[in-house]
Structure formats: structure tokens, C-alpha cells
């Protein structure tokens, strides 16, 4: 059954252009009085901006829809339209059943009020009846883990407590459709796990979830359907894996291959010139994106313009933050003029998910760098998990399977 249908929804904002950007009373009065005296003059200072353009989407009961897209793609605007905070400029949204939206945790919390008072305030704001709040009160306090501080003004709460309380209230709403925006960005790992668990409960009980997050792992783990927005337009909707793949493919700054046909314009110097550098999956099955399981093969070729040179290559792999994950090189050998080819195999189940880039260096006489080819390749490794219910960011630079942890039951009580 379709519980939510979005038909041709568009949302337009008017941007004020330069010179008109200060929107104070005086300007408006001036403009207004000008328009009285010069009624024919068209006001062309405004520029339209379509935050959403002709969105069509259907959500079935029990679906967990993940909205993905870059910042400014219109995800939040869509949620705002769905939760009736702004009206669409065109189009219709049909909603069956009670919908609650959680665009922020602890909406309307008043810092001076106690936790107890805020539970009732926030509950009412989210559309709960008083009897419902009373019924869930203990569960909320328990979920948030703040029983000792329930009669303390929330301004004295730590930010973690504040967020936990906010989420706990929202989690005990019992709407047929729950709209959630980026709540996982806050709280510690333990709390994130609890929140995801709660959202999964929501969907398991036949209710519908609409979820926005930049944490693709969480989106993939939680949702079964996805919709990818770009510049206010719906690019792709369907199964979550396909949607996420499409999204990753279009946004990541992949540089998987660089190639030069002649040595004239290739990077390098009088002694060496780069010919090609590439990174491919080192397996039979072709994949669009690399995930943590994918073994990778790097090929690096260069022109050597020196005779009897003792050369070796040195490969640097950096994380996105610029930290060097590893640096390895081959043994130095004597080479003649011509093309030299080096390969490097990076096994699967070794790197963690994240963005990486590779630089390559050619070294002469085992000590002197001849040429350093920086940022030659850039690639993303996607997350892949099984056997865990946790979808937070996996910590660490590497996630090697070759190092294993084994547990056995040593003793029985």
C-alpha cells in the first residue's frame, strides 16, 4: 500500500540579487513607494532558485527510504515539505496516516526547564498526546539514561545528555511514518547503535521510515529503498544499493588512470617520464566501485632515459587527511633506456573504507629521488559489512582480515 506519494512537487525560493540583499524595512518601503509611482517598472531583482523540481516518488508501507545526495541537493527541503514546515510551490503530497518528523533532536527544548518538563513540552511539540507521554515516560528516561538528572534544568546537561533525551522522546513517538534527518551525526558510538536499533524497530513493526544521512553505511544498513537527489532533481530511485552506487559513482573524485602516449608532454624530467599509472580491481568480477573486500592492482610505467641506472620505485598510499598509510618500494636493479613497468598488489580485506590517494616516486642509487609523482591516483573504498548490526564509522586506517581475533568459551560457570 502506498502511504506517501509525492507528485510533481517543486519548491521555489526567490533569491535577492546584489544591491538588494539587505532586506531591511527601509529598502522595502522605498521599493514599495517606488512601485506606486512607477507601476509599470518590472521588478527584476529577484532570481528564482528551484530547491526541488518535479519530484515524483512513492513510498509503500513498511519501506525504509534513504535519501542521498550532496549538500544542497534538496534533501532537507524535501523533508521540510513532507513535514509541512514549508509548502510546496507546485505539486501535491498525499500522506496516509500519522507522520512525525524529526529534523532535529530536542526541538523546542527550553534550557531553563527541567528534563521532566521538557519531555512533556517536546512531546507535545512532536504531536504526542499527554496520555501517550505519561505512558512512555519511564521508557524515555531509561532510553536516554538520564534518570538521575530528570529534575535538573536541561541547560546544565552535557551535550550528549541533551541529544539522548531529545532522541529518546522522538523514538517513542508511534507514528505510521517517521521522517528522520541526520540524527546519527551526534552522540557516541553506543548511542548511535541504540538509535539505529530503534529506527529498525520502527520499520520492523510495519511502519514507514524516511531517512536522510550522509553516513552511507548507515543508510545502506537501515534502508531498503533509496532516492538520489541532485540539484533539486530526482536522479534515481529504487533499491538502496543501486541508488548508493549511482551516487558514489557520480560524486567521488576518482582518478583511476593516467596515461601519456608520448614522453614529450608527460610529467617528469630529463631522466625519467611517467607513461602510465592505473588502479584496477584485481579480480575476475568487474565492479563499478571498490569496497573493503576488493583486491586492487596498481600498474606504474615510466620511460627511463638513462643507461645503466640503478633504479627502484617507491609507492605512497595516503588517507584523505594526508596521513601516510604505507610506503613500500621494490628492490633496486640496473636498467637500460626504455620503458620500465612496476606493479603493486593491494589485497582485499586490507584497507578500511574511506578516500585514499597514491603517489609514486622513482629513486636512483637507492637514495636519491629522481622524480616524485604526487597525487597520481585517487579512489574511494566503500564499506562492506556482514555479521554486525553496527553501522557507525569503522575506525582505523586499515581493516585487515589477515589479523584475526578468536574467542572460545574457556570455562563454564
Amino acid at each position: 500500500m502506498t502511504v506517501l506519494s509525492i507528485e510533481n512537487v517543486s519548491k521555489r525560493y526567490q533569491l535577492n540579487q546584489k544591491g538588494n540583499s539587505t532586506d531591511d524595512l527601509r529598502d522595502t518601503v522605498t521599493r514599495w513607494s517606488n512601485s506606486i509611482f512607477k507601476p509599470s517598472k518590472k521588478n527584476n531583482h529577484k532570481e528564482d532558485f528551484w530547491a526541488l523540481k518535479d519530484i515524483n516518488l512513492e513510498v509503500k508501507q513498511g519501506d525504509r527510504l534513504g535519501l542521498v545526495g550532496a549538500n544542497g541537493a534538496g534533501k532537507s527541503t524535501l523533508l521540510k515539505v513532507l513535514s509541512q514546515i514549508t509548502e510546496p510551490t507546485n505539486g501535491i503530497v498525499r500522506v496516509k496516516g500519522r507522520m512525525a518528523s524529526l529534523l532535529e533532536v530536542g526541538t523546542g527544548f527550553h534550557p531553563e526547564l527541567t528534563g521532566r518538563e521538557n519531555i512533556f513540552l517536546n512531546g507535545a511539540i512532536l504531536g504526542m498526546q499527554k496520555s501517550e507521554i505519561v505512558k512512555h515516560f519511564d521508557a524515555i528516561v531509561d532510553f536516554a539514561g538520564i534518570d538521575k538528572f530528570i529534575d535538573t534544568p536541561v541547560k546544565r546537561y552535557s551535550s550528549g545528555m541533551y541529544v539522548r533525551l531529545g532522541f529518546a522522546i522522538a523514538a517513542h513517538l508511534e507514528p505510521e511514518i517517521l521522517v528522520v534527518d541526520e540524527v546519527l551525526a551526534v552522540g557516541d558510538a553506543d548511542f548511535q547503535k541504540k538509535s539505529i536499533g530503534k529506527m529498525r524497530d520502527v520499520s520492523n513493526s510495519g511502519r514507514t521510515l524516511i531517512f536522510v544521512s550522509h553516513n552511507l553505511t548507515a543508510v545502506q544498513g537501515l534502508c531498503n529503498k533509496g532516492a538520489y537527489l541532485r540539484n533539486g532533481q530526482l536522479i534515481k530511485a529504487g533499491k538502496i544499493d543501486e541508488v548508493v552506487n549511482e551516487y558514489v559513482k557520480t560524486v567521488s573524485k576518482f582518478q583511476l588512470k593516467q596515461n601519456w602516449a608520448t614522453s614529450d608532454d608527460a610529467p617528469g624530467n630529463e631522466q625519467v617520464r611517467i607513461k602510465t599509472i592505473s588502479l584496477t580491481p584485481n579480480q575476475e568480477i568487474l565492479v563499478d566501485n571498490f569496497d573493503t573486500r576488493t583486491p586492487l592492482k596498481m600498474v606504474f610505467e615510466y620511460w627511463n632515459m638513462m643507461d645503466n641506472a640503478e633504479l627502484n620505485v617507491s609507492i605512497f598510499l595516503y588517507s584523505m587527511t594526508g596521513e601516510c598509510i604505507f610506503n613500500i618500494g621494490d628492490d633496486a636493479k640496473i636498467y637500460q633506456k626504455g620503458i620500465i613497468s612496476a606493479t603493486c598488489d593491494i589485497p582485499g580485506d586490507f584497507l578500511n573504507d574511506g578516500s585514499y590517494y597514491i603517489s609514486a616516486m622513482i629513486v636512483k642509487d637507492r637514495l636519491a629521488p629522481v622524480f616524485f609523482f604526487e597525487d597520481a591516483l585517487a579512489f574511494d573504498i566503500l564499506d562492506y559489512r556482514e555479521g554486525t548490526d553496527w553501522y557507525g564509522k569503522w575506525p582505523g586506517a586499515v581493516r585487515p582480515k589477515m589479523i584475526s581475533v578468536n574467542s572460545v568459551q574457556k570455562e563454564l560457570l
Partner: protein
Amino acid sequence: MNSTERIITAKKSISAYLNEIWDFKELFWILAKRDILVKYKQTVLGIGWSVIRPLITMIVMAFAFGKIGKLDTNTAIPFTLVVAPGVIIWLFFSQSLQALSQSIVLNSNLVSKVYFPRLIIPLSTIFLGLVDVLISVILFFIICIWYQFLPDWKLFLAPIFILLTFLAAFGIGLISAVLNVKFRDIGQIIPFVIQFGYFISPVGYLTESVKSADHAWYYKLFVLNPVTGCIDALRWCMLDDFAAFNWDSFIPLVIFIIITFFYSIRFFRKHENSFVDHI
């Protein structure tokens, strides 16, 4: 599964809107309660402030206008009693106007994050002032006992005029609240209006004393002030036979309320959906 279908489009009917306000009545109470709870948090005197403010105002007014301005010489009853209804109305009016005009901006965190009929926010501001009115009225009774003055049956009409006072503030307050979202200038104008409003309303003096002056044109303008109508009416009902009912100021008040009430609600409805885009 609830089978009722809700449709979100660019326009909504009036009856649907009123229904929605009714659905959110719980929120209305809780917002009113919040404002009252929060008002005196972390103060030593707490609710005592609601006693001190009207009391000091009455004393200062009675002293400034009565003793220094020598207006108390020809009144039949103690001048503090004459001032009391004026102070009650003025404090309620100014407080309501202030609260109304700031209501949307102060609740911007709600407006930009959750949906409910926005009219709930300004409507719920009435209670904050009502609590103070109640305390001021009790204070008035204490003063009555002090001066051994007995109001007559007309006193029971007082709630009507208190309500009219809120309605008088409601229209302009609501329009200010909407404008304040886009133009924070309103936040500057309102306190200023409240500051000089004291003097152009008959808080510390009687409307009669304006009438008896030679400037007849001034009296005609003076009675157009809606607060004048409210104060005159409250004086009539609270002070036994002391003041006659003044139709000159009451009729403009009623007309003012009717016009601003409907216009302001229309104005509010027209703009409430774009609050979030400007706030």
C-alpha cells in the same frame, strides 16, 4: 492503520485550518505553561515580581500624577484607586503587545523544525499577561480594603474588558509578529511605543480631564486610542459610581478590534508559510 489521507499542497481551507488548531490544543496549553514557568526561573522573588511591578507602578503613578500633578484634589475617591484600573490595563496591554510581537521570532526554533498551526504561538501569549492581571486585581482588592472602598456589581463585567484589551493588542501584535520575522525593526519600535504609550493613554489621569481642556480636536484623537477605551471601561466597572461609561472611547475600541482582528488573521495566514524562509 489510519486511513485518513492528508494532502499537502500550496493552499489550505479555513475550516481545515481551524480544525487543525483544535487538534493542537494541547500544544497551546503547554506553550502557555512553558512561558509562565520560564518567566521567573532563576529569580529570587519569582512570582513576587508580578506583585511588585503593578504595586510600584500604581504608587508611582498616584504620586506623580496625583500629588505632583495635583490631580487628586477634586476626586471623590482615593487617587490610588483611580490609577489602579489604568495600570492593570496598561501593563496587560503592553505585556501582551510585547509578547505577541516577539512570539514568532522567539519560537523560531519551533517554526523552522516542526509543523503545527502557527497561530497557536501568538494565541498562547494571552496567559502570561492574564496571570499578572489576576495578581493585579487581587492587589486592587487589597487596596479597596485599605481604603474601605466597595465596588458594585459592575465589577463582574471586568473580565469582558480584560478580554477586549487582549483583542486590542492582538491585532497589532499579530501584524507586528509577522513583520518582525522579516524586519527586526519591529523589535525596536514596540518598546518605544510602549514607553510613550503611558502618556497618551489615561493611565495616571482621567479621560474627562482631557475633555475639559479647550483643545476639542485633541480629545477626538485621544479617544481613538484603543487603550483609552479599555481603561475608561474598566474604570466604569471597577470604581462603583465614580466614572461614567464613555461611549466616545468605547465605540472606536470595538471598531478597532473588529478591523484589526480579521485583517491581522488574514495577514498572518498569508505569511505564515513563508516564516521559515525568512526567520
